[in-house]
């Protein structure tokens, strides 16, 4: 009970707050750290404008799943099965599980890489991370899981401090963020690959599945819709700001003409210039990003599979009441961690391939979302997309398809760009 309407709103917002921030910050996972720092290391801050364009794309896509989740109280996978039939349901689920699992492998590879740079044996670091991830989730306490995850999300803001310490040119960053431009060297194969990877990592299909399931699991009510929208908007702004900061950190490599291999190597290369604490900061934030990514992506897989199979699938219930749901989550974590401990995996290639694969699959995921949000028989007039929603969404879909087609041309005709 509170006496003031203002405080009741604040309190309700704080109670609703979570899924939007978690999904967007988990999106800045190890793959994102790699993609954005690589973009910075190779092109400086020239590609900052791509991030600014991705802000509304992220928000509008996620806002739709919030609406769908609140209206139906069900997850995304279940809705695709129900409304589009078994073929599309199975395809979406297979696609989600494949990309998700490969992504989880890359997250553990990043944990291994980062902690190896800090002198910690991967055979200790990876199993420890896996066990911690299992303990946080398998407690049967939604709120405990959410609070721990929000703290991890807020730690991501430390990227802002790292970026500020590199003293970037504010004018140049602002100009590159506002004015779209092609970096020196023109439209090369590598540039197209990086741009598609950036799109693929900022708006990934698992995010749609995760947030809808999370909203349904948290039992958000119709009256919570605007608070959930605010949560998503805050998350979308934060994800873009943090991604920009990663690019600014990578920009130091570009300015000093240093060779970029991966974020861990970048941290080591920057240590002589910016101090050993800077290196440790990058490595720890890389671990944090990987842990957040692993948790959210594994959960989106387990929620989706549980919804389709009709298992009990909630973080609100104990392990004994949802053994298959938790078992699926634990299985994915253990298998991915085990694969990483097999020596010789080409990390950077896997990371970029996963981002590209996700980028390719995203247009179809958004088309389903768009069709579901125009399904008046299901949602009624209140929750379906407004006309302006549809204009924005179809524009986004067309852009994503164009990027996807460019990638296809690049694969079929490797010399199409210099």
């Amino acid at each position: 009970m509170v006496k003031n309407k203002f405080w009741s709103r604040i309190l309700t917002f704080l109670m609703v707050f979570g899924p939007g921030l978690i999904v967007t910050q988990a999106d800045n996972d190890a793959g994102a750290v790699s993609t954005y720092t690589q973009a910075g290391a190779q092109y400086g801050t020239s590609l900052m404008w791509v991030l600014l364009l991705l802000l509304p794309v992220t928000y509008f896509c996620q806002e739709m799943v919030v609406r769908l989740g609140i209206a139906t109280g069900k997850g995304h996978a279940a809705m695709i099965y129900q409304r589009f039939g078994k073929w599309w349901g199975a395809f979406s689920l297979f696609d989600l599980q494949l990309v998700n699992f490969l992504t989880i492998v890359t997250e553990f590879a990043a944990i291994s890489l980062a902690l190896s740079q800090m002198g910690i044996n991967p055979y200790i670091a990876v199993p420890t991370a896996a066990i911690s991830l299992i303990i946080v989730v398998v407690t049967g306490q939604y709120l405990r899981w959410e609070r721990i995850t929000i703290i991890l999300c807020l730690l991501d803001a430390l990227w802002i401090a790292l970026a500020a310490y590199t003293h970037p040119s504010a004018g140049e960053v602002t100009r590159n963020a506002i004015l779209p431009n092609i970096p020196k060297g023109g439209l090369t194969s590598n540039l197209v690959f990086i741009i598609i990877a950036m799109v693929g990592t900022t708006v990934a299909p698992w995010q749609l599945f995760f947030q809808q399931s999370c909203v349904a699991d948290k039992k958000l009510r119709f009256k919570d819709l605007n608070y959930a929208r605010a949560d998503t908007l805050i998350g979308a702004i934060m994800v873009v700001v943090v991604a920009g900061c990663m690019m600014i950190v990578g920009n130091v490599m570009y300015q000093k003409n240093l060779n970029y291999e991966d974020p861990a190597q970048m941290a080591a290369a920057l240590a002589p210039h910016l101090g050993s604490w800077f290196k440790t900061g990058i490595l720890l934030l890389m671990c944090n990003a990987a842990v957040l990514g692993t948790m959210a992506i594994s959960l989106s897989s387990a929620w989706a599979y549980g919804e389709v199979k009709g298992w009990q699938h909630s973080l609100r219930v104990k392990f004994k009441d949802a053994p298959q749901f938790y078992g699926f989550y634990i299985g994915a974590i253990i298998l991915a961690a085990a694969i990483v401990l097999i020596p010789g995996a080409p990390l950077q290639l896997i990371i970029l391939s996963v981002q590209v694969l996700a980028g390719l699959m995203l247009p179809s995921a958004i088309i389903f979302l768009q069709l579901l949000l125009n399904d008046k028989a299901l949602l009624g007039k209140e929750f379906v997309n407004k006309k302006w929603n549809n204009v924005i969404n179809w524009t986004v879909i067309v852009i994503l398809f164009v990027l996807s087609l460019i990638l296809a041309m690049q694969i079929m005709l490797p010399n199409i760009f210099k």
Partner: protein
Amino acid sequence: MEENNMKTSTIQNKMINNIFLKSNRNNRIQSSYEVIHPIFDIPEEKVDTNNAAPLHMTKSVKWSLISLRVYLIVMLGLSVYRSLVLAGFIK
């Protein structure tokens, strides 16, 4: 007479006081807000997804979905091919 007037006035005052107190109490009730966490709130009735009419699909939507299916299968194959080339399995 005077005594009667005093009694009437006291009763009137009491009534006014009661009304004032009651309205004050009501205001207090209106100005206090109950905030319940969604997890602990009474579950609300959601859209009935099981009994909703089938998704209305125009011919163009149907054909678009078929094209999308073909496109995705081709793109998936191409991505795998690209990955194998980059990994050095295919020259």
